[in-house]
Structure formats: C-alpha cells, structure tokens
C-alpha cells in the first residue's frame, strides 16, 4: 500500500471580512488523501473554497485549523529553507492567467523564471528547456519575444502551464486551467498532462467547472459546497450515480452541445438564496436550496460517511433522494 502524497486533515481556512466583524469560513473542515500518480478532481459552487483549498495544498495559505501533509510531512514543521526547497515539488497553475505573469517580462523570460530561481544548469540550457515547453503547449517560438499584454487569454494560460511544467513538480494544482482554451487546444493540453503523468508519475488536483473535462481526466472527484465536501468517490460512479442532491443538480445543469431538439430538459433548477460563507445554514448547509430537504436537515448536520466502499457522502438521505439507492453489493461490483 503506497502512502498518500497529499493528505488533508480537517482543514479549515478563515478570512476576516472587510469590516473585520465576521469571518468567511472559506474551507470549513475538509479531509481527503491523494495518491501519487492520481488525478483528483474538485468541482463545486463558485465561492465554495476550491481555490482556497488548492492554495493551502501548495503552502500559499496557512491552515487556520487542521493540517495538510505533503509526502507525509507537515510542511510548517520544517525549517523555512527546507520548506522552500520542498515547495518546488508542489506547484499551482492559477485560475487568473495574469496572476503569475510579470507584465514587464517577455514570455520566454517568464517561462524560464522559475528555473532561474532554482538556478539549475546554465542560462542557455534553461532557455532551451523553456523553448521546448513553449512548443509543447502549442505556441510557436516567435511568442517567446512577446509580452503578456500582446497575448490572448488562452495564450497567457498556456504560458502559465509551461512555466509550471518546466520545474517538473510532482504535484500540480490545476485551478481552472483549460477553461480559457478552445476545445481542440484543450484536448492537446489534457493529452499533454496525461502524457507527463505517465512519464513522470505526476499527481494532479484538478479544479474545474467543466464536468465533461473533470470526469474525463479524474480517477476520483470531490464535490464542494460552501467550504465542505458533499460527496467524494470514483469519477464514473459520481457521474452516473450521484448520491448527493447537489451533485445531481450540478450534473443536470451541464450545458450539452446538442441541437435543441436533442437536449433532454431534465435540469434541476435550484431555488432559494445562496447562503453566505460567513454564516452557513444550520444542519446541512445545502438545505436552503435542496429540493429534498426535511426537518431533520435543519436540525442535524449530516455525517461525512462512507456509504459504500470508496464512496463518501454527507446527506441524511444519500442515494434515496437522487434515485440511486445505495446497494453495497452493486457498488462493490462496479468498483471491482
């Protein structure tokens, strides 16, 4: 049995609001393990804490409570020089393609920058690696001389991807990295990610709103809502037999590129106010928008439990509400 490369334990991250009178519970008690070489998908509500979670995994945010262990070690227990050295193996590609690009740096310098900081090899060899990476993300060499403001959204995003790939990390948090790309280039980038995974055993945490993409690339998926996981399990099972009503609503809302006559109108429209992360609802935090909510949902917080082997869920009526009753025998067959 291999040990997890990322291990998140009861993680909580809070931010003060602008007037400092309240706190935003951005991540509010999340636990999961990611195995080396795995692609772990995270989907969920806008503002549910996915990017915050991703930043905590690569030590850009310190946990308010709980722990993130990387390769079995709590990074904050390490001396700072050692922490910096290890962090290299854990990289994030940001949702906002401008976040990591210096507007005054040419593209090739930007891609080489992380290697320059590490200071490995000669400048020429680092430039060569940067050029190769530019090529692999599908940009012609002439782009090396451009500046960020001369690039389209998708071109910038590919520069960010190239930047991170040059340092050969072992874990990459991909925060909405393919959304800005057209479907053909997206396919190329996803194929490149898969190729590097096969080649170097890379591990990915894949945050995205694109259900088609996440279920294509991930082995397991977690569904997040208001700072907590609602459901976690193998990608195919979550996509085909969701146990949590929120997962089901997400799946039903996915827009399908088919002509109107061929689209089934089975969308579940969520009613009700989206609650605020400063003050999540009592009991189940999805209850204000859940079409299946009962009295017990307001009074008792549903436990995070393993409903079937490998399938975790937090709902009093897991499976029942979504029309996929939990039958441990069939689930086991499906996983085997």
């Amino acid at each position, binding site marked *: 049995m291999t040990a997890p490369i990322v291990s998140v334990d009861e993680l909580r991250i809070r931010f003060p609001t*602008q007037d400092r009178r309240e706190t935003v519970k951005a991540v509010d008690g999340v636990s999961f393990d990611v195995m080396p070489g795995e692609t772990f998908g995270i989907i969920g509500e806008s503002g549910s804490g996915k990017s915050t979670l991703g930043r905590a995994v690569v030590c850009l945010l310190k946990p308010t409570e709980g722990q993130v262990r990387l390769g079995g070690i709590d990074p904050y227990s390490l001396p700072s020089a050692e922490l910096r050295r290890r962090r290299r193996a854990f990289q994030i590609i940001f949702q906002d393609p401008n976040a990591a690009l210096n507007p005054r740096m040419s593209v090739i310098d930007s891609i080489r920058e992380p290697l320059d900081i590490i200071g490995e090899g000669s400048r020429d060899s680092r430039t060569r690696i940067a050029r190769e990476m530019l090529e692999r993300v599908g940009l012609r060499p002439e782009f090396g001389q451009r500046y960020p403001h001369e690039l389209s*959204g*998708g071109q910038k995003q590919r520069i960010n991807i190239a930047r991170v790939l040059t340092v050969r990390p072992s874990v990459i948090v991909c925060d909405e990295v393919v959304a800005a790309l057209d479907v*053909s280039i997206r*396919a190329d980038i996803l*194929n490149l990610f898969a190729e590097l995974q096969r080649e170097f055993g890379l591990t990915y945490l894949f945050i995205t709103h694109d259900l088609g993409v996440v279920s294509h690339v991930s082995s397991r998926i977690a569904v997040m809502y208001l700072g907590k996981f609602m459901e976690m399990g193998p990608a195919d099972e979550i996509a085909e037999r969701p146990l949590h009503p929120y997962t089901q609503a997400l799946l039903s809302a996915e827009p*399908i*590129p088919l002509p109107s*006559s061929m689209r089934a109108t089975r969308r579940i429209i969520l009613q009700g106010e989206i609650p605020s992360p400063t003050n999540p609802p009592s009991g189940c935090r999805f209850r204000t928008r859940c079409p299946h909510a009962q009295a017990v949902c307001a009074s008792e917080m549903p436990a995070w439990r393993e409903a079937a082997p490998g399938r975790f869920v937090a709902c009093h009526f897991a499976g029942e509400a979504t029309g996929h009753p939990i039958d441990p025998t069939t689930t086991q067959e499906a996983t085997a």
Partner: protein
Amino acid sequence: MSDAPLLDVRGLGISFLIGGGSVHATQDVSFAVQPGERVGIVGESGCGKTITGLSLLGLLPAATTRVVGQAMFEGENLVGLPLSRMRHVRGRKISMIFQEPMSALDPVFTIGQQIGETIRTHFKVDKKQARERAIEALASVGIPSPARVHDSYPHQLSGGMRQRAMIAIALVCEPRLLIADEPTTALDVTIQAQIIDLLLDLSARQGTALLFITHDLGVIAETCTRMITMYAGQVVEDAPVDSALVRPRHPYTSGLLRSLPRLSARGAMLPSIAGRVPTLRDMPTGCRFAERCAHRQEACAAPQAIEQEGAHQVRCWRQGELVLPGALTDREAAA
C-alpha cells in the same frame, strides 16, 4: 427599417505594431447582429475574438493598433468614433463583460464604488439611490449577501463572484447590445444556468442583443441562435447553431466539435486538430486552415471568400461538397 441590423460589421481588420513591424491580427471580419438576437462566437484561442469585441468599443491601445473597415451601430460607425461620442455608447448602449474579471476590475476600489460610478455616469441619482441600485444589481446575478460584496475589494472575492460582479456592472444600465467575453467560464454550472436565464430573460424583455464569445459549445447551444466560427483572424463559418452543431460546413468547425470530450471514452486520448495555426507574420494568402486540413486540394491555395451555402456562410473552396461530422456521437447521428 425594422429588419435593419443593430450592429453591422463589414470588413473589419485589426493590425498591431509589434517588434518594429505590423501584423494583421484579423482580416475581413463581417457579421451582423439583429436587435435582440443572440449570436455566439467560437474559435481557436488567439483567433481574434476578444480584440474584435474590444475594437467595437474603441478599447484597443490606440498607439499600437490600426483598425480598418466599419461597424455600424444605430447609424454611427464605431470604428474611429470620437471619444466624446464613444462615451455615450460604452456602458450605456453597448457593454462588455471582459474575459478576465480581475484585470477589468480596479483593485483599489470596492465593487460598490465601481458599479456606483457606472450608474452615476449615465443616470441622475444620488449616492444612496446608487447604492441601492448597485446592491440590487448584485443580488440579481445571484451573489449571496450582496451588501457584503458591495463593500468588498476585488481580491476578497472568489473568481466566480468577481465574474458576477462584472456582469452586474455590465447590465446595470440595460444596454442594447451586450458583448460577453467568456462570461460564465469561472462559474459553476448551476450559477451559469442562472446567469444564462438572466441573459435570456433580459434579451426577451428588453430586446438586448447578445454577442457571446465562448469556448463552451454547450453554452452556445443553449443560449444562441447563430454561431460564428473564427480561425486565424477570419470568420470561416456563420450558421444557425443547431445546424452548425449537427452538420458543420467548414473543416475547422468540424474539427473543433470532434475534439469534445463527450465523444471519447473516459481517460482515453482526446482527438484534436493536428498541427498549429500559422503565425500572423506568415499567413498564407489562400485558405488559412489548409496546412491542417485533411480535405485540402490544390485550389485551396487561392484566397477563399466567404460564400452562402443554404443557411450557412462558409469560407472554404470545397463548400457544398464536403459532408463533415459535428458534435453528435455515431449513435446520436444515426438516430
């Protein structure tokens, strides 16, 4: 008069000065948008969708950009429109939701200050009314605790919330045309569905026309009636959405649709269009897609004009002759 387009773009071309030379980023872009019509623009990353939108509002850097052609909007040519006139158009008659909300929002002002500014530029309201209207606008795009968000700075919001704040700013003056550049990619699908409903409702109620730039073909299918496909700075196809999805007429449109993950098995290699787009400096004079096209013939090396074929307009030598697959699986196509 009644069927005069709201926006009529003819022969729009954009070039940039870079590295001592000039490159043509787009060329001969023509399309029209009727009042209340919902038109989607798709295309390869870097093909010129965003700059086309920006050029309509005079938002490209003047010193390094040259725009030719015309874009008629309510009797005025937006290309070369003096700034004093453009101010009345921007935000009031045409608004744009930008692809990168973080760069479009000003980091030193709160969201509320930024919406308030737009409201007070175009309407006579006092501070208090502006605040109320701003909070209302934030609530209408599904932002929880809109008052908190009103008083927050952009960096304190999640990506999706910034995006919704941008949408609120764009809609607050109820424009005639909304150019939405990837407006929902940062949003989860339930919020996305809500925003799409909001846009559809706005378009039905106020006759707001939509120009929807996105890579999400599902969103185009559900929101738009027409789909324009761009490649390497040109429009290569312009067709009714349903027809373009089922039977695209241009090989690039077809290649794009065939790359969708829904057409391949989980975890399998995804098909994509082999090769890369030519550089702006070395654009072939003939078909710009030729280098990557499986249907190329000798005649494709000649310049290709966009021509009508049924309900489609296509820029391809072999239009009318090729039968190309779309976004349907084999099973769906057979049914």
